[in-house]
């Protein structure tokens, strides 16, 4: 039996050693040294790897210092950051990700990973970004934790031949949109005037209605009031229009909705500026069919009659950030500024650049890239104007995030189980929960 006791003792020892090994972190060094000749590791997806390659091509002397690591977007950045922080090393120097990721990583729990880029980017360069483009990158203390690469203002798409044939005017307010919906339901039932599904409803419908979904009040608190009249007017509008049967529910990215477009049975659709390049061309319409050319008009999103400024939401867009642990901040920042502001790099990318001079070049090619778009009014002029009107609240998300609360509720609305007004109180409770669960406080009243 002594061997038995011995083996038990050995097992216990192995267990304790293993657990301690897993649990004990190596103390991290908090003060990075600076070394202008240190190499940097750049963590980007395939699309952005081309931008970094453009920097290397423009600066061949620095080629040996830059290592590109190809990672898909959303590749468990938080998870890996916890591990890097735990071992106190191995952080990439530059990463491309969603701005909400940087807001999450700019918290004590993640040891304030992103560095402040303000010292490296002059204010006059920042002024040439679209007005609220970099708002998601501004931390509560005012530091600039990322630089926006691309933006996605929401606009209204319309079926040019159908609108002309029926003699309809484009709605510029939601009131006019409801009136048009009533007319369409009566005169031309079967035509769709938008998509009501679970995909980012808070961005597509609510933020631009001046609805205080998660309005940042301080570093630790948010105003959360979905029962606010500015939100309720939109919920009531959605229920009204939905009851008329002019909203489709099959999903923005579904083949079924694409068929409606291909059959010409759509009238109006609301979506981000990247829709023509990525979804309308290909999924919705066959770009090679000459009959489809010039059929998709682009207009500004309607607003409420009493909204004095034209506003819209932003639906997507990535950003570059620098690690505060980098040894070669000079080079990392130089790379970030180059890829974010070089007009040629910006014009060659897939999504709308956030830097206005790059965006102008990008927009000039829009009609050539997507001949499905109607040329009058010029779609790029409309998108650019919309980009200038993205309101700040709709540009800032995370943490906490409202999307995971909205989507499940709106899948029930799309399925026809609930109405938008009937979910209001549960949705409000869900939003408050999301704020609490993410470790913040919520204020549920006020303007």
């Amino acid at each position, binding site marked *: 039996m002594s*061997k*038995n006791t011995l*083996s038990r003792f050995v*097992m216990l020892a*192995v*267990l304790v050693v*293993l*657990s301690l090994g*897993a*649990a004990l*972190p190596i103390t*991290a060094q908090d003060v990075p040294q600076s070394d202008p000749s240190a190499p940097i590791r750049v963590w980007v997806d395939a699309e952005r790897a081309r931008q970094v390659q453009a920097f290397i091509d423009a600066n061949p002397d620095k080629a040996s210092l830059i290592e590109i690591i190809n990672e898909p977007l*959303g590749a*468990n950045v*938080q*998870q890996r*950051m*916890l591990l890097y*922080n*735990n071992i106190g090393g191995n952080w990439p120097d530059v990463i491309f990700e969603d701005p909400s990721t940087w807001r*999450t990583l700019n*918290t*004590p*729990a*993640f*040891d304030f990973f992103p560095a402040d880029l303000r010292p490296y980017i002059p204010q006059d360069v920042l002024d040439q970004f679209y007005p609220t483009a970099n708002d998601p990158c501004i931390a509560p203390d005012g530091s600039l934790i990322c630089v926006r690469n691309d933006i996605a203002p929401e606009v209204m798409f319309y079926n040019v031949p159908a609108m002309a044939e029926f003699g309809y005017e484009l709605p510029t307010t939601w009131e006019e949109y409801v009136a048009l919906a009533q007319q369409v339901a009566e005169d031309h039932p079967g035509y769709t005037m938008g998509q009501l*599904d*679970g*995909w*980012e409803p808070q961005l597509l419908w609510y933020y631009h209605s001046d609805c205080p979904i998660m309005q940042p009040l301080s570093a630790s608190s948010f105003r959360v009031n979905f029962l606010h009249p500015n939100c309720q007017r939109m919920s009531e509008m959605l229920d009204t229009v939905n009851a008329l049967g002019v909203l489709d*529910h*099959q*999903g*923005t*990215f*579904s*083949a*079924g909705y694409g068929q409606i477009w291909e059959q010409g049975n759509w009238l109006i659709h609301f979506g981000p500026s990247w829709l023509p390049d990525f979804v309308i061309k290909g999924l919705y319409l066959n770009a090679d069919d000459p009959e489809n050319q010039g059929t998709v008009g682009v207009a500004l999103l309607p607003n409420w009659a009493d909204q004095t400024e034209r506003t819209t939401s932003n639906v997507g867009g990535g950003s570059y950030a620098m690690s505060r642990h980098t040894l070669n901040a000079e080079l990392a920042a130089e790379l970030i500024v180059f890829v974010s502001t070089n007009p040629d790099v910006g014009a060659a990318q897939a999504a709308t650049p956030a830097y206005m001079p790059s965006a102008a070049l990008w927009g000039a090619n829009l009609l050539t890239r997507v001949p499905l778009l109607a040329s009058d009014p010029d779609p790029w002029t409309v998108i650019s104007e919309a980009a200038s009107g993205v309101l700040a609240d709709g540009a800032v998300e995370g*943490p906490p995030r409202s*999307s*995971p*609360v909205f*989507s*499940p*509720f709106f*899948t*029930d609305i*799309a*399925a*026809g*189980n609930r109405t938008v007004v009937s979910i209001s109180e549960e949705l409000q409770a*869900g939003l408050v*929960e999301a704020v*609490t*669960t*993410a*470790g913040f406080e919520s204020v549920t009243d006020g303007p």
Partner: protein
Amino acid sequence: MSALNRLTANDSYRHNAHKKRGTIGDWSLLLIVPYLIAVAMFHLGPALVAVIFSFSKFTFGRPEFFAAGLDNFVKVFSDPVFFRSYGNVIQFSILATTVGFVGSLGIALLLALTRDQFGSVARSLLFLPGAINPTVVGLIFIFMLDPVVSPFGFLFRAVGWNATTDFVSASNSVVIMTALRFFMSSGAWIAIFYSALEGVSQELIDSAKIDGCSPWQLAWLVRRPMIMGFVWFMIIQLVAYNLQIFAEPYVISTALGGASFIDPYWSPNMLGSFYTLQRGDLGMSAVVSLSQTVISISASIFVVTRTGAFVTSTD
């Protein structure tokens, strides 16, 4: 151990045999060393770490051991999302365990009736989905639920579901997860039950047949009572496994991105992952894990001690 000792003490022949093997008995322990190492590394070790973490504070992503006291427990238990996620998995467990149990046992009993080629093909087919990684099954399942591309599309359309969005919604999440879980895990259980049923003594079956037992009576009255130990074992496993559901809803909610019908803290394990990945708080995450451990172990102890299905000695 004690049951074994009592058994051997009652039987002098076995007692002697045990004595004879005694000289090599200790060496045989070596054979389970790899298993013990694996258990220590992947089960007991992490479990111990979870206990330590649950009392630790994570301010800058690194643990301060035992600095949190009971703070993490208070924070988690006062989070309304915690109980909602348990609400979801309890509904899911009841439905998925029932469906998994009735379905697997039923199919296994049917398979035990067949002796032809069809039976062996069916056994292989039923086992196949279990051989695929749950993550992959989750992704495939999204397409299975799309009436436009699914091979079962005609069934969906027959009940009026023409688009995924007609029925894949938050209110149906429990049912959808149950269907997914059954598709994925029933194969393994059917195989286990089938072997258990085949393990029933042939003499017993023959004598039942001589007494005029029909195949259905044979399955239900003779075979089923003989495998109750497996049944309870399966129920323990299914409850523990279902309470821990993570991969499928997590993959689906990630894949559907901003259009997901499942929220990021739908199940306790997803909530644990949320605490870790969004708040960087492994302490709160550890509390969620421990809460599941306590529930699963309590359920196991209850089943083992109260059902009588695991009695090893009758004296």
